[in-house]
């Protein structure tokens, strides 16, 4: 076992949708520049946990965080009400299940994060957009049509565009919520490759319902069930030697 730098961790983290206690005392470490996968049956709270990391739940009324999610190196509790959710979202980006490009051009989509930060210099934008598109392995395909509407791309391209969008603003963590479940196998493979590449630079937290995928791309895996974190460990160990009965049942397909 190697020693990892901790990028973030949840501590006795609880989450409530109104009265619905969706996450219970979750303690999850997130290692820097590693891929951490969240697996578990439908409704176990994977997305809920993931979305807590960039305060997405703040957008809807009645939601409540309890406990802490600490972000390093500055060691703030990112769910504390004193912390500005916008700052958190600028530092922690997210890629969603269904590709959701904005109804704008490819260029504007990728530049969006920078424009939000008030960046207006065309040269900076162009440079960053190219860098991000290259990072998302999309540059070659779109470099001649940056002013086309993003809607005209295929599903897989759109998802890579969303990744480029997330990359462009140099986030510290990128959250992926089942990023390939709406894509065909070929597009899926290209996204997986991409994740393997970008983890060189960014910390990644990914939800997936596909255990093969988790096994393929992640360094660490957390298995959740009914809102609790049942087991966490190195992916290679967890899939081969699960310590808990529930984990074993799940990864062998006995339920879920």
């Amino acid at each position: 076992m190697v020693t990892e730098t901790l990028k973030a961790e949840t501590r006795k983290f609880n989450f409530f949708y109104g009265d619905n206690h969706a996450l219970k005392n979750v303690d999850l470490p997130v290692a820097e520049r590693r891929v951490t996968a969240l697996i578990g049956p439908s409704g176990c709270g994977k997305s809920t946990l993931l979305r807590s990391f960039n305060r997405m739940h703040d957008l809807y009324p009645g939601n409540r965080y309890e406990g802490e999610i600490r972000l390093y190196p500055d060691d703030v509790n990112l769910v504390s009400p004193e912390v500005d959710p916008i700052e958190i979202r600028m530092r922690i980006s997210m890629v969603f299940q269904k590709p959701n490009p904005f109804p704008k051009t490819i260029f504007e989509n990728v530049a969006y994060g920078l424009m939000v930060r008030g960046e207006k210099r065309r040269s900076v934008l162009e440079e960053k957009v190219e860098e991000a598109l290259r990072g998302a392995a999309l540059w070659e395909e779109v470099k001649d049509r940056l002013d086309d509407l993003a809607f005209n791309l295929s599903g897989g391209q759109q998802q890579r565009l969303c990744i480029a969008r997330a990359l462009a603003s140099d986030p510290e963590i990128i959250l992926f919520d089942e990023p390939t479940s709406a894509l065909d196998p070929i597009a899926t493979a290209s996204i997986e490759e991409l994740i393997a590449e970008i983890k060189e630079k960014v910390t990644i937290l990914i939800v997936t319902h596909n255990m093969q995928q988790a096994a393929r791309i992640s360094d660490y895996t957390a298995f959740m069930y009914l809102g609790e974190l049942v087991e966490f460990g190195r992916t290679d160990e967890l899939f081969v030697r699960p310590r808990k009965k529930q984990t074993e049942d799940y990864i062998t397909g006995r339920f879920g």
Partner: protein
Amino acid sequence: MTTTDTGGSGSFSSPYLDRIRTMRHVRNGKERVIEAILFVAAFCAVAVTVAIVAILLYEASTFFEHVSLVEFLTGTEWTPLFERARYGMLPLLVGTVVTSAIAFLVAGPLGFLIAMYLSEFAPPKLAEVLKPFLELLAGVPTIVYGYFALLFVTPLLQKLIPGLPGFNMLSAGLVMGLMIVPYVASIAEDAMRAVPMALREGSYAMGATRFQTAMWVVLPASFSGVMAAFVLGISRAVGETMIVAIAAGQQPNFTFDPREPAATITAYIVQVAMGDLPHGSIGYQSIFAVGLVLVVITLFFNLIGQMLRRRIREVY
């Protein structure tokens, strides 16, 4: 491998099956009669339109036997009931355009802001409280608005604009604008709500503020719907009657100055209708002729509005 055979007993004969079979024709007959009745009801909508168009065209056609279309469309004097009858409907048209434009200048920005506020900014609880109030505003009878424009808004405006006549297009247009604000706001808000949450989340996840999300993501995504709200709002204003009839004065006046009194197409129709309608006279026919113009204008705006609305529905 299993061998299979067909036939055998089975629970196939349900006690109701015979009845179902014998009733099939009766049932189908009844269904068909009902469908026919329902179709006739639905076709009534078409019948009403046909009736409207037929009546308007019929009366207007006799009107145009006396009046040349060129004079009607280009003349700047409208005095069909007087000794020196002139049949240029431009004054009515201009009155309609000016009052509608004022109304739009009020209802467009206000409706847009309200829609954006309710859909993107307001806490959901507050929005739920505010919205019914707006809907109530849309429910107030227009004659009450007319009263309000004439006896409240105009005196108020006269204090601000010295020399403003007691009847003017400004006051009528302003109040009409207030009246259609809820209408514009609700269509625009529908359009903004139709923008999937996923797009908003995508934007917020980049660290955008509400304003940035609203302007850069929600607005472009709902653009045609917002346009539809504007167009349909204008169409409403063009067809509104009592407010302009009461507060704008009923004198056909070829002027673009909103401080002047003027008659709109609708105001002219009620004005004539308030006296008697000498059935068959040119005055009687003239209201159908201008009515026809009114229908054409509102229909035009409405078709554009519907088209724009449909477009946003198709995207999401």
